[in-house]
């Protein structure tokens, strides 16, 4: 019996191999390039989102403190905010805590005083000082010397706060911007396009 060789399973000719290798190389290269681009895009999007979340956190932190702030001042470059907030909670080292360590973490009962400026509500003879500042790629919140990093990103997060004092009220305008990984030559619009704004009024504004 003679086996018939089928042309369909015959080997490739050299020219066929070269052509197919070339084509498959092109397709593979395109696929790898696409994959890398997609990966970079995903990373950039993920990074953008992460930084945006930090934007929100900075604003939420600032608003929370400004709302309960007695006094708010901003630096000349608008990148540092200093505020005094009532000492509502007894902390380690406070006179009450020294007298009775069990009181640490507990709230104080307010006291009332009449001053030349009118009535004042106080939780403690002293107040808590809170400072927001930038250090490298991090945004720091310092409360009575204790530093907390509230945001950190290589995307150059920049918060700017302006304290506006009117005759009958006071508020702080805050904007936070950053520079995403993907840029087009550092165009200004790339930073301004990420702007997030917030306004918080001082609920404990004191006059006199």
């Amino acid at each position: 019996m003679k086996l018939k060789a089928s042309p369909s399973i015959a080997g490739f000719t050299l020219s066929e191999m070269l052509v197919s290798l070339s084509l498959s190389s092109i397709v593979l290269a395109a696929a790898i390039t696409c994959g890398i681009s997609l990966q970079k895009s995903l990373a950039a999007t993920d990074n953008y989102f992460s930084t945006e979340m930090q934007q929100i956190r900075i604003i939420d932190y600032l608003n929370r403190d400004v709302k309960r702030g007695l006094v708010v001042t901003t630096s000349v470059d608008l990148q540092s905010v200093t505020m005094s907030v009532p000492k509502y909670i007894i902390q380690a080292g406070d006179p009450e805590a020294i007298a009775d360590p069990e009181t640490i973490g507990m709230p104080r009962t307010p006291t009332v005083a009449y001053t030349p400026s009118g009535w004042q509500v106080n939780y403690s003879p002293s107040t808590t000082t809170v400072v927001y500042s930038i250090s490298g790629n991090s945004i720091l919140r310092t409360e009575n010397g204790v530093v907390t990093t509230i945001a950190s990103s290589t995307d150059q997060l920049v918060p700017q706060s302006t304290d506006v004092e009117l005759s009958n009220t006071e508020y702080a305008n805050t904007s936070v911007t950053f520079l995403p990984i993907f840029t087009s030559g550092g165009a200004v619009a790339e930073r301004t396009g990420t702007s997030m704004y917030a306004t918080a009024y001082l609920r404990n504004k004191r006059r006199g």
Partner: protein
Amino acid sequence: MRISTQSFARGNVLLCVLATILVVSLIGANVLLNCVTRYNVASSQVRSWKESLDAAETGGDIAYAELRKTISDPTHAFSPSNGWTYSGGAYTNSPVTYGQDNLSTSSRVDPFYYDGSGNAWYRIRTKGTAPVLGLKRVGMDDRMGPNTRGDSLLRKIDFNYDHFVATYGPNGDGVGQTLLPVSRPQVSRRVELIAAPMTPFEAAIKAGGTFYGLGSAAYIDSYRSTTGSYDASVKTNPSDPRYPDSRSGTVEINSSVATIQGSIYGNLYTNGGTITKKTSSIFGIIDNNVPFSLSPFAMPSTAGWNYVSSPTMINPNTTINPPVVNGVPRTGTPQSPNYYLVTSFANNGNLTVNPAVIGGVAQETYVAIHVTGDIGQNTSSNPTITVPPSVHLQVYFDGNFQTKAENIINTSGYAGNLQFYAISPTDPTVQQTVNLNSGGGSTSGFSAVFYTPSANFTINGAPDITGAIVCKNFYGNGNVHWHYDRALDTEGDAVDYRILSYVEDIR
């Protein structure tokens, strides 16, 4: 025999397709997982965190509204029908659920301080809760650093138990800590507000309606009686230590209709007015966007006051001496004055209220008189009220008030010692009036305060006045010299409440 390789080739393609689907699915699942985690943080958790503060502040508004009712509508304040209960010296309400996101809020209100006038200060503690939608999973990172996100650095989410109750107890005072399961993930935030009583005389003139006045040569300034008597030169002498108290002659107008003449050594507030420093001589702040409301004034409860049955009519030369109890003249107290109910105050009535004298020394004596009709009925009326030093007289009247400025004689010179309160008519068509006329060009004036929120107040001539006035519409066309005593801002019963302090409990 023919050997076919087709089936092997088909299997190879199938494997390739399955592998491709697997890879694409893994990529898709990874993207989806990332998206869901981010969505949970950005949409659900951030939203809930913000909404819970909104709920807490809503609870504060609810409690504040109830607190205001203690003055404007006491019988319905903190009513059980609105879900309020009183226990252990505090009012609490059952949680109120509202909004399409099912936010809930509850409040606790308790007095913590009483000022010199006996007015209570309240502490309002509220809790707002917002459910966290989405999967019951954390997907967050507490740490903050180059490779960590710090997702839960600020926002505390209760997934299984209320962390606050477990750590600090339901009232946050370290009492009653317990593991309190939550029905679904939630965020709770708590705020503490301090509601302070608003006393009647916080400004020199407060008009709930329109304002016209005063004369072109008139002025309004201030001083503080507790640091010395009035001195007209202080307001232009910044080196005088009393100078800061000399420029609080504030005028508040809850209307855009305001014609300002003369000089105001204080602030000027209108509600939509167009006053500028170019149009008037105002040395303080001008703010044309300060609305306020004046509630009608009702006769306060006389329960606990020392009722004295005589006199009931004020005629010429009527003198009130303190009642003698067990051989001792009764002085009364700010909370429990000697109280007289007067049905008639003659047009030529002349009332003198004397202090209690013990051992030859005049005692601080507190007297309240309720006149159920008018005090002076026409422009020819000249009723007189005389208050010697040591007497603190409060006059409540249901009708109108008409007399000459010089007939209000408060010899102590301290305006807080002579207080007039106009009880608002129950019939809204009745317009109450207070009309003071210095008459004949007299510049003599008076020291007194008027709280007449429903009355149109008119003052003519050029009297020298020490005191404060709260009225509906104000009209004055004389060159009045008006001195507001800053000590008055602690005088009198509360007429409303304001929020003076706001603290968020961030534990």
